[in-house]
């Protein structure tokens, strides 16, 4: 196997020329798979080795690391719930306003522009605080039941974060929609398709292909931004971590590293999983002949 082909198999890219069947293909897939397994095993081994090394040096206390896991796990579940709300809601908003900004309607375009400028321009932490406080005040005015107010206001904070993320996604979706040449729309209308059919059958599938990589970027970013929500009282992963740190500081300063490493790993796992899903969808929208050039 020459160097070029070996590099390609490493990157999991299909060869540019020739039929993709037969023994060669199978062999290539096998090589690729073996390489991936080897790299995965290598990284894991390295990680364990370094943890054991740190443990020997008394920097890493495995017993303590285990003892805080249940608490961090609780925080992880809260973060998971936030992500499960913020990403879909942000995407829905981005999708709607991205579409709105490309329509002919002046009203919708204006609305989209204002939405983006406001929610992208204001700091997310301010948005979160304001929506939390205003909701609390509003509900207390009506029901005077502080418990209901607390719950609703907490979720309003999460919704505010969705609006912030949605503003970024609006621009991502808009870029995707604008990347579809007018010729595609003309061709679609020329065979008698209505505007909606054109949208769903021709424009969106092509726009989505372009929008997916930056969308994955935004999802990865907003996962970590959910940690801003603890300023209004969410006991998410980062907040639980902070609480653990404050107790740990009373015992041994080195424990702080253990906590943060664990938090980092949990955020990483979540981000990695989400980007993997995006990658999977990306592959489904791949068009033969339109892959990026192999640089």
């Amino acid at each position, binding site marked *: 196997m020459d160097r070029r082909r070996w590099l390609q198999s490493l990157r999991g890219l299909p060869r540019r020329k020739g039929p993709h069947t037969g023994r060669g293909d199978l062999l290539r897939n096998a090589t690729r798979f073996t390489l991936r397994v080897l790299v995965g095993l290598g990284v894991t081994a390295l990680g364990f080795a370094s943890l054991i090394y740190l443990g020997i040096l008394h920097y890493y206390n495995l017993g303590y690391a285990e003892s805080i896991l249940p608490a961090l796990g609780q925080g992880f579940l809260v973060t998971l719930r936030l992500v499960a709300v913020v990403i879909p809601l942000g995407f829905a908003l981005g999708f709607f306003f991205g579409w709105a900004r490309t329509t002919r309607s002046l009203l919708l375009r204006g609305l989209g522009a204002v939405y983006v400028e406001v929610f992208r321009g204001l700091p997310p932490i301010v948005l979160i605080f304001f929506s939390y406080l205003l909701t609390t005040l509003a509900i207390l005015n009506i029901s005077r039941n502080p418990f209901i107010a607390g719950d609703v206001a907490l979720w309003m904070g999460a919704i505010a974060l969705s609006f912030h993320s949605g503003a970024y996604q609006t621009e991502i979706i808009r870029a995707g929609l604008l990347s579809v*040449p007018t010729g595609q729309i*003309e061709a679609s209308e020329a065979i008698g398709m209505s505007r909606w059919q054109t949208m769903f059958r021709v424009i969106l599938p092509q726009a989505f292909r372009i929008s997916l990589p930056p969308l994955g970027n935004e999802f990865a970013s907003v996962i970590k931004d959910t940690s801003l929500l603890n300023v209004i009282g969410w006991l998410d992963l980062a907040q639980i971590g902070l609480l653990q740190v404050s107790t740990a500081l009373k015992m041994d300063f080195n424990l702080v590293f253990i906590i943060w490493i664990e938090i980092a790993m949990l955020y990483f796992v979540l981000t990695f999983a989400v980007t993997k899903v995006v990658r999977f969808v990306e592959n489904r929208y791949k*068009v033969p002949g339109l892959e990026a050039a192999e640089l």
Partner: protein
Amino acid sequence: MTMLRLQGIHKSFGKLHVLRGVDLEVNRGDVLCIIGPSGSGKSTLLRCTNLLVYPDRGDIFLEQVRVTTRAVRPEWVRQQIGMVFQQFNLFTHLTALRNVMLGLVVVKRMNPADARSKAELELQRVGLADKKDAYPAQLSGGQQQRVAIARALAMDPRVMLFDEPTSALDPEFIHEVLDVMGRLAKEGMTMVVVTHEMNFAREVADSIIFFDQGQIVERGSPEEIFDRPGHDRTKAFVGKILR
């Protein structure tokens, strides 16, 4: 019998008066070629014909039926009139077969199995049965344009419009597209072709229109236009092109 009739068509884009009163008739089974300098409004005329661009004034009749009224949906008109573009405009995310099938399934509400067999038949007509699973980016320009023709034909149009179908092609691929069009003409399809292929126009066209500055300057048989043009502007244009 008149298949298509345009009457006093006007169209402006802002201050630019692109079409300045066009009257035009095409009989069933005829091939009409439109020649003229670029920027003269030929493409806009075709786009007005299938209401891709709605004319500001004037009427269009398809088999004696006035289609420029609110009672007729533009989508219906476009379904009756096939169009082939200079830049092919195949749907890049679909295979050749799916490109042809899309209109059948979505617009004609055909069931997918029937649509598939009809699409395969249309691809066979343009000689691309073996390329049905290829994506546009994997096809040559000539092949893409033939798929585009198959896509338009699949809708069983009454008229076919061609907007400079070979202008974006490498010279080696031009003849394969012209061959398909010539065969189509022989089969009796009513066609309006904007083209710079004078040999094609001479051989296939029943009549030729010289179009300039948003108006029909002259209409006649190929011999009349090419060999004894009556108008000075036609003479100048034909002289430039044929040399």
